[in-house]
């Protein structure tokens, strides 16, 4: 009896394996094009006569914050061989349920062109308001840069900052804002870290 069950397990696993291997390239391509579409939405203000270039792995100097990884996958936004801005991944482990992955688009002057959460498992109806599909909360950062407010204000109101958290959910917006703030603070300190010369 047991060996039969094992046999069926093995057969179905092999079957799934074959489908997995044969669809893997198509899935990778589809993911990549979905990613590019998301990048287009994000960097829209910069894209009037620019295009999204090839992503480059860039080693970060100094002590970089936990919201960034090194080497960092930096996607440049280029117009006539000039870099108009960059898109970088930002992430945090301080969320309520697993990592929150974000994308941040900055222009040449380190001003935020776009900021989105692209992957999260926060509580539906509470923490998931960080998702641009649910509310406009995440769009309030557009146009800001680290220097546009005093450093202490880069926090939720509960922590003495200027950004509202949601009723019933503090951990999620705090995690997002802290990740954004430490990323901007680091880039303020190392303006050339991402390879754009202002």
């Amino acid at each position, binding site marked *: *009896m047991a060996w*039969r*069950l094992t046999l*069926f*397990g093995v057969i*179905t*696993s092999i*079957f*799934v394996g074959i*489908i*997995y291997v044969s*669809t893997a390239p*198509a*899935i990778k391509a*589809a*993911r990549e*094009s*979905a990613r590019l579409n998301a990048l287009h939405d994000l960097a829209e203000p910069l894209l009037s006569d620019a295009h999204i270039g090839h992503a480059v792995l860039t080693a970060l100097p100094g002590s970089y914050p936990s919201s960034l990884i090194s080497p960092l996958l930096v996607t440049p936004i280029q117009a006539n061989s000039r870099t108009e801005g960059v898109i970088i991944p930002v992430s945090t482990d301080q969320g309520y349920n697993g990592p929150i992955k974000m994308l941040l688009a900055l222009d040449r002057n380190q001003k935020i062109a776009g900021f989105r959460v692209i992957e999260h498992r926060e509580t539906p109806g509470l923490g998931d308001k960080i998702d641009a599909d649910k509310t406009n909360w995440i769009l309030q950062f557009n146009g800001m840069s680290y220097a546009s407010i005093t450093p202490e204000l880069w926090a939720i109101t509960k922590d003495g900052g200027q950004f509202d958290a949601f009723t019933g959910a503090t951990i999620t917006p705090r995690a997002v804002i802290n990740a954004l703030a430490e990323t901007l603070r680091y880039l303020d300190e190392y303006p050339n870290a991402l390879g754009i010369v202002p």
Partner: protein
Amino acid sequence: MNYKTILLNGLWSQNPGLVQLLGLCPLLAISNTLENAVGLGLATIFVLILSNASISLIRSLVPDAIRLPVFVLIIAALTTCAELLVQALHYPLYQSLGIFLPLIVTNCLILSRAEALARRESVWISTLDGAAQGVGFFLVLIALGGLRELLSSTLILAALPPGAFISLGLLVALHRALTEWVKNRHQTTNQNDHTERRVRTTGDIL
């Protein structure tokens, strides 16, 4: 069992969405737009046909004691394949279906067809039943999806979860009313036949 009964059962008289009321979770959650409804419906048909066919194929090899684990293994494997295929063929649909695509594995419609029919009948009958039940489910999904999408532009409630329950209730009522109507009509025609066929067999014939 004849083919006509199987087809009629799946599409109308034993429709999974309107009569058996199976697989309500995806039915109600995913019917908010027509596109989602079509995507999930096709994925469910795919899994249902293949699971019925393969369970029927191996029915003599599976002892009763390990029947359920084997069925679940097969359904889970097929659902994973469906998920991979949707990802490869239409990624935006994969994103909008989200958790409901892998949750096909828990759709009780699929396991109930395996238990009720596929483990006893031939491959051909089981495949046909899978197709009939799957298409029946698909039609209810798109009817519900279309109805809700149509109503939601004027009535926001239709797009929300309560709207799903109310719309499904209306469809179930419509289905019952139509079934009753067909039955009554059938009876009256039978009665008419009956009166016409009545002939005198005794007494004097002039």
